[in-house]
């Protein structure tokens, strides 16, 4: 391994601009003559718009225009779309209600977009918004799943009179019923997967621009996938044809899924730029982010596990109700379906699984993918079930898991997935060793001596990443392919630019992708530039989510590099006057087998461009290659996390004393960056388990809409983490990478809850396990003990 090649903990090349304040985020971009947009949002969860009177506001200082849904309709601008079709059990399509970027006749959640005010300054736009007079006829709201499904509930979309988006299922019901019929023991759990707000630290922002001379629109936006944004804004929303629309996602301050989606605000900014003849800039404040960024999770689940007399899992039956909010966001329908149920088998050999999912409209913000997207929900179901099943049988939870682990690969689960490779026991062994599980009893006694409760919880997670192949996801309803593209441009002096469809918003692609190039081409890291986030530069790309940029994005780069080397051999053959078959490429040099004749990579690049040693008939000049890479399977990162908590029964405060994570991500390019991804994921998972929860009151008001009300994990809420790795290289891509971005957020919540319930001695605790809830649970245990 070289100091900068694959496997080296190279310090990040992108850091210099971030630590010196020279990062360029969307809100840092200012266009000459720009105007500012402010969105007037609905204060009601559900209401008819009777009238919008803008006359007073329009007359205010600095106001340029006030646009509403009527203006969108007049310009024939289409609504926002959901790009994944789900079919009901009876084969009929899901019921997708219209989603205009500015409300047309009705608002459906607090924060819904009613009008946009464009003014010379942001403050003037905000002031004018207060003077827009909207007459609402308020309607009863359904702010949660139960209220929306009640008989006589208010109808949110006419296409779904019962507020049900779809009734979907996966698996073999008859086989599962049969498994339960012969079960010796059945473990049952009711689980709530709490609603979360993603909260990347950079709020969303957009700057729309229109060049009347060329007819080209430009949108600077906080996006994880600028090409997908361009495709949707062009082909579906109808802002401009793709070749007349440039989307730039510059430095983006975190996404976690919430910046995948195509939202109302960027749609309006780019459309309005032409309308007012000025660049239009919008930056979300944090309250707006809470109200209108797509939220995550929000499942209510009943799950049952059937066991035989030896404690082997026979079957799994899961019924989930998923809240999708007031409108279907871009990929919302895929999250509680194909990103969820196919992971319910976990790391276990389960012969029969049946899962039913009802997706529900409510008068709340749209719900879509958030770090892990469906897989954390599935992992919470299976890892809570196995933990409780083991406890009910009086078995050690680690041994119970080990007994039921999949050990033969490939392994076909009953729910779509074919696990290609893994070694689950290896991760469990290493995690138990690192966590010093064998001395847990001693630590528990020590805690008891101080009046504290100590618990240990496992989570043996698996996820499906890359979210490819395209053919497979297409057959499941995806509206797009999930390959990735790369272009490797070698300059005449031998420096290299890689144009990638992946997008980095914290993942460190500029470093890891360059490591791959440096490794393969044998050139120094500083001779490689990674270019991303601009549809005018990069041909096309599907963007970054689903832990896919390593497994899919880098595989595309590797494939393009192979083509560069192949072309380089042809050039070298002419330049060295040898036959192509005799040219070797190693450590950055093309050489003739069995001779001392060789040329450095840069020399061959120059020969390719000056084209003096071959004719145009013999070989095309230049050295630039493109690849579109579509993997052959999903990837299956897996691992074991162990959480150890200490609870103060007097206050209900849970302190995480130790965290051990052992993950199998296959081949790791930069362990420093991968460990950082694990740390961040765990923090978000711990946030879900202990701190975070979005809460709407019964009228549909979001009562957790600021950092004063929604508890973000802070430095003193978390411990340092012990992170280890095992490795079974992924056979489905040329680099052996599985992906690491979501693992921590997937693994962590059940590890925490399993630890808390272990400490408390009963299972009745829901997320977030706040001090109040834990204290109440402690009281419950003590009452129960007293009664016994």
């Amino acid at each position, binding site marked *: 391994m070289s100091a900068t090649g694959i496997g080296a903990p190279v*310090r*990040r090349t*992108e*850091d*210099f*601009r*971030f*630590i*010196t*304040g*020279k*990062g*360029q*985020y969307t*809100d*840092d971009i*200012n266009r000459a003559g720009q105007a500012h947009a402010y969105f007037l949002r609905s204060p009601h969860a559900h209401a008819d718009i009777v009238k919008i009177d803008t006359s007073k506001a329009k007359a205010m200082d600095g106001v340029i225009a006030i646009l509403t849904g009527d203006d969108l309709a007049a310009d024939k601008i289409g609504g926002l779309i959901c790009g994944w079709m789900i079919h009901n059990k009876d084969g009929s399509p899901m019921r997708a209600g219209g989603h205009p970027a500015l409300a047309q006749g009705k608002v459906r959640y607090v924060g819904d977009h009613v009008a946009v005010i464009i003014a010379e300054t942001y*403050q003037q736009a905000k002031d004018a918004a207060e003077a827009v007079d909207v007459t609402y006829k308020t309607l009863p709201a359904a702010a949660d799943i139960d209220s929306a499904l009640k008989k006589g509930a208010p109808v949110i979309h006419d296409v779904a009179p019962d507020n049900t988006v779809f009734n979907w299922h996966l698996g073999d019901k008859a086989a599962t019923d049969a498994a339960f019929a012969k079960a010796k023991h059945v473990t049952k759990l009711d689980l709530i997967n709490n609603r979360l707000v993603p*909260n*990347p*630290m*950079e*709020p969303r922002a957009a700057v729309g621009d229109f060049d009347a001379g060329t007819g080209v629109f430009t949108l600077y936006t906080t996006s994880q996938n600028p090409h997908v944004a361009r495709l949707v804004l062009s082909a579906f929303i109808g802002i401009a044809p793709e070749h007349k629309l440039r989307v730039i996602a510059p*430095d*983006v*301050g*975190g996404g*976690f899924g919430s910046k995948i989606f195509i939202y109302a605000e960027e749609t309006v900014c780019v459309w309005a730029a032409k309308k007012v003849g000025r660049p239009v800039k919008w930056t979300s*404040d*944090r*309250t707006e982010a809470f109200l209108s960024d797509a939220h995550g999770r929000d499942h209510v689940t009943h799950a049952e596990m059937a066991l035989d007399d030896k404690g082997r899992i026979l079957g799994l039956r899961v019924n989930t109700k998923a809240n999708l909010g007031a409108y279907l966001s871009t990929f919302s329908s895929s999250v509680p379906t194909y990103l969820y149920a196919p992971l319910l088998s976990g790391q276990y050999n389960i012969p029969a699984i049946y899962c039913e999912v009802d997706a529900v409209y409510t008068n709340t913000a749209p719900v879509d993918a958030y770090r892990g997207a469906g897989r954390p929900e599935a992992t919470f179901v299976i890892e809570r079930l196995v933990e409780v099943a083991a406890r009910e049988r009086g078995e050690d939870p680690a041994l119970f898991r080990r007994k039921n682990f999949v050990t033969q690969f490939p392994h076909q689960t009953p729910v779509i997935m074919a696990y290609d490779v893994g070694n689950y026991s290896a991760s469990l062994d290493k995690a138990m060793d690192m966590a010093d599980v064998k001395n847990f009893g001693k630590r528990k006694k020590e805690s008891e001596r101080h009046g504290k409760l100590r618990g240990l919880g496992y989570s043996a997670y698996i996820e499906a990443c890359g979210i490819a192949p395209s053919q497979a996801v297409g057959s499941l309803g995806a509206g797009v392919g999930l390959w990735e593209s790369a272009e490797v441009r070698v300059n005449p002096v031998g420096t290299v630019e890689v144009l990638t469809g992946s997008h980095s*918003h*914290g*993942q*460190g692609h500029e470093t890891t992708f360059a490591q791959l190039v440096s490794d393969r081409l044998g050139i120094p890291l500083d001779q490689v530039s990674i270019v991303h986030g601009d549809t005018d530069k990069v041909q096309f790309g599907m963007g970054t989510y689903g832990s896919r940029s390593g497994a899919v994005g880098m595989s595309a780069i590797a494939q393009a590099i192979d083509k560069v080397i192949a072309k380089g051999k042809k050039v070298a053959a002419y330049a060295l006057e040898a036959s192509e078959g005799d040219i070797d490429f190693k450590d950055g040099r093309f050489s003739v087998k069995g001779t001392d004749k060789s040329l450095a990579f840069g020399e061959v690049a120059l020969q390719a461009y000056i084209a003096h040693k071959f004719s145009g008939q013999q070989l095309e000049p230049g050295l630039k290659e493109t690849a579109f890479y579509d993997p052959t399977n999903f990837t299956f990162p897996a691992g074991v996390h162990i959480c150890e908590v200490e609870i103060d029964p007097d206050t209900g405060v849970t302190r995480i004393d130790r965290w051990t994570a052992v993950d199998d991500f296959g081949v790791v390019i930069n362990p*420093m*960056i991968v*460990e*950082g991804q694990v*740390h*961040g*994921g*765990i*923090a*978000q998972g711990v946030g879900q388990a202990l701190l975070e929860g979005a809460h709407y009151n019964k009228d549909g008001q979001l009562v957790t809409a*600021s*950092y*004063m009300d929604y508890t*973000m*994990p*802070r*430095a*003193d809420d*978390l411990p*340092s*983490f012990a992170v280890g790795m095992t490795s079974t290289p992924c056979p489905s891509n040329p680099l052996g990478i599985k992906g690491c971005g979501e693992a*921590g957020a997937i693994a962590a919540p059940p590890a925490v809850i399993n630890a808390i319930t272990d400490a408390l001695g009963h299972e009745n605790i829901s997320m977030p396990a706040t001090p109040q809830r834990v204290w109440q649970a402690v009281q419950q245990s003590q009452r129960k003990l007293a009664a016994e």
Partner: protein
Amino acid sequence: MASVTMTVNGKTVTATIDPRTLLSSFLREHLRLTGTHVGCDTSQCGACVVHVDGRAIKSCTALAVSLDGAHVTTIEGLASDGHLHPMQEAFREHHGLQCGFCTPGMIMSAVDIVNRKGAMLDEHTIREELEGNICRCTGYHNIVKAVAAGAQAMAATKVAAE
């Protein structure tokens, strides 16, 4: 409109501004010092931390006009003579940042912690002192390491200078 004069990163600036202009807006929009970020509207996240007269403050919470005559240092003014500040170096060396959005505020807070608490900082102290800065990417693990290392490097630099 109101007139304000202050020294920002060693340069004297005078401007006529709307009296409700926050220091964060003044820095970002009037001076185009966009390294100072705004991540919330309740003074919780700390992305906007700058130093005013040598002390860390959240620039989204101060009116620019109230700081007439003040000396302000932003992330852009932390490096000197082309050399990164030891705390900036420590964040890079210990991978204390991912998306980079909270980073300027984190680094400015971290320098302030060392100024107040000295170079020997234990993990518990660092975590408590970072309460006012939210990071969504790193889980704080590497930030804590970076602050501890940066604190020691700051002390070493000071000794070397003396």
